[in-house]
């Protein structure tokens, strides 16, 4: 095998071009990692709000909470289902929730859509992730609301004590809720009855959130809906699955666009690597000849050049991932297609993403270094030495 020292020497002599190649690969890996972090962030934000024990009931054909309607009659039928767990007071652990979207002014200009969710008192029991960090829960029967931490941070007039105007009335913010980074942090919650009245919704809701009784699986619960003619238009899904589906469109969009860009980008980086390595070979023809004359084998020469590109591309990959990891400090928000309202999420890094990024950078390097290395290995000793 060719000594590592020899490879290292190669770097020093062409420090600038090697550095430029590393920078190019780092840039590509940065973009690749950022895209994966973004879609993972969206998924995590939407999926982390859910529990496997809870089910969300929506109209079968609806594509999101906002386009689903459950009329009062249906809600009453669902409330009597034996598959729903009972609370300490003997009442079913269920919350029929009207969901609407309102406009608020964003900090830094522009308006955006915010989800307003009407909830029943059981909602807090159903979602153990929710914690009121400031103030208190709204009082049932009053025009009070609590808002998620993202809403408070990102919108004007959404702090404790502020009043939000919608549906011809002012709603006082009496509490701030933390939802462990889930999508609820981008929502405003109020009393379901109050919101139904204010928005002329009668007694209809958008979706229903229920806790399934111990031992009841989602399949059994679904079956109960299939068996009841009054409920055949509706479908329960576990909360986890429901929220995951809500994230699909946005996450897919980010991944599709991001992957397309990354693939195109990587061509640029691979070409950069090819140029560097071809030149590295061309500059070292005499050296290669000497090494071969000393008895080093073709595969050693091939190995050493491949090792060199792998080193270059891995360094680029590591740098790219390190820079991308700083993105975790940023929170961004965008419209979620399904809920039609703003969703704040963070870039999120996982071990899987890091491994992916490093494999990706190595592959780029291998593709870029393969042909130049083959060329180096194929050189005839005589030709190579004559080159000097």
């Amino acid at each position, binding site marked *: 095998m060719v000594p590592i020292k020899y490879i290292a020497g190669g770097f020093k002599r062409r420090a600038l071009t090697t550095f430029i190649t590393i920078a190019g690969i780092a840039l590509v890996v940065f*973009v690749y990692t950022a895209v994966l972090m973004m879609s993972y962030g969206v998924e995590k934000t939407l999926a982390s709000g859910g529990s496997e024990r809870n089910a969300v009931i929506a109209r079968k*054909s609806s594509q999101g909470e906002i*386009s689903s309607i459950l009329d009062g009659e249906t809600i009453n039928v669902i409330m009597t289902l034996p598959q729903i767990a009972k609370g300490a007071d003997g009442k079913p652990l269920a919350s029929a929730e009207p969901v609407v*979207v309102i406009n608020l002014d964003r900090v830094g200009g*522009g308006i955006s859509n915010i989800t307003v969710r009407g909830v029943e008192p059981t909602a807090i029991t159903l979602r153990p992730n929710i914690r009121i960090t400031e103030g208190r829960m709204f009082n049932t029967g009053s025009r009070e609301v609590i808002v998620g931490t993202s809403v408070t941070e990102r919108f004007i007039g959404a702090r404790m004590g502020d009043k939000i105007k919608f549906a011809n009335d002012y709603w006082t913010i009496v509490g701030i809720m933390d939802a462990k980074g889930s999508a609820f942090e981008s929502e405003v919650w109020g009393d379901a009855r109050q919101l139904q009245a204010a928005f002329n919704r009668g007694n209809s809701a958008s979706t229903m959130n229920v806790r399934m009784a111990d031992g009841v699986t989602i399949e059994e619960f679904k079956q109960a809906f299939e068996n009841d003619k009054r409920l055949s238009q509706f479908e329960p899904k576990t909360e986890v699955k429901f929220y995951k589906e809500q994230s699909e469109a946005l996450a897919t969009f980010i991944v599709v666009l991001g992957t397309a860009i990354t693939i195109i980008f990587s061509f640029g980086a691979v070409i*950069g690597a090819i140029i560097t390595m071809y030149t590295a070979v061309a500059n070292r023809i005499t050296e290669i000849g000497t090494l071969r004359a000393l008895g080093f084998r073709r595969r050693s020469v091939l190995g050493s050049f491949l090792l060199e590109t792998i080193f270059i591309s891995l360094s680029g990959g590591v740098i790219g991932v390190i820079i991308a990891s700083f993105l975790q400090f940023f929170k961004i928000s965008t419209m979620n297609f399904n809920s039609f309202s703003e969703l704040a999420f963070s870039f999120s890094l996982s071990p899987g993403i890091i491994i992916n990024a490093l494999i990706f950078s190595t592959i780029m390097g291998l593709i870029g270094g393969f042909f130049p290395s083959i060329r180096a290995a194929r050189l005839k000793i005589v030709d190579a030495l004559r080159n000097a």
Partner: protein
Amino acid sequence: MLFKMMLRNALRHKLRTILTILGIAIAVGAFGLLRTVITSWYAAVEAAAVDRLITRQAVSFIFPLPYAYRDQILKVPGVEKVGYFNWFQGVYKDKSEFFPRMACDPETIFDVYPEFLVTPEEKAAFQKERNACVVGADIAKKHNLKIGDVMSIEGDIYPGRWEFVIRAIYQPKTPAIDATQMFFHWTYLDERMKQDMPGREGNVGWYAVKIKDPSESAAVSEAIDAIFKNSNAETKTETERAFNQGFIGAYGAIINGINIMAFMIIGIILLVLANTMIMSARERNREYAVMKTLGFTGKHIFGVVTGESIIIGILGGIAGYAVTLFFVGAFSVAVPKNFFPVFILADITVIQEFSFAVIVGILAGIIPVVQAIKTDIVDGLRYVG
């Protein structure tokens, strides 16, 4: 003489030069694609007519307005025609087949939106039949729909099964107009609501108001909103452009992300080209020394090196334009039509591509030129590659 030298130099390492041009071309193509994604995103804003206002519920777009507002808006001075729409959605074929489906006023839609072209016969046929609908040419093509076909849609916001007969297919007036929408009679929707879900009838989603003089848009907007101030459903009126802009604003983070990436690509082109130039300049140190010995000044050498890199930049730009056409074509085939109803490469994007290729050519030449000029004649002559 110097130009010949630049050309010769550029072609000396054919493989390397071709790779470099290819690298630049791909990066330029990616830049073009990203910018096209963004301009397409804004297509709805660009296509907005200046003489159209949108009146919607002040709380948010999803809340309805009473149908009764129509007559009051019509009375506002400066208003010419009032159309109204209602977002219907529903599921056609399956959930992934998304395109806008709306209820409209069949009498006014083609007056308020003259960019949707239909023949007088089709228009009359559409207006006459209660459950008639009109679809955009792109949608008709995609789903192979002809006049007389029945479209059945499973309602979500408006539950139940709905059947519409296609009586017209509209053509977009320019390629920048969205031809992926479907419209049907609002009264058809309203009658059924009266029957199935009492309490939901008598509502429209938003009004599209055609005004006589575009310069009066602010005054007319204020006049409309003033009528409904302190009513059960306050309104917010703005130009169609501002309205569409508001929608796009919500995607700000993604748009910014794409924009940043587009400009990072410029960085990649720079790196690829700079790499090549540094290498070729290093190889030619000896030649530059010879040139200096012969009496060529630093200025000449500057010209030769940057000239070469600009030539490569321009060639990369030209190849990049071809790559852009390919990428944009492939992208519009690969991405569902509903994502970007309009997907066209803008002239400004092409101009930007070329400018960047040339500017990058100049920048990439700078490091090697500085090196070349700094080199002592003696050192240069002694230099071994």
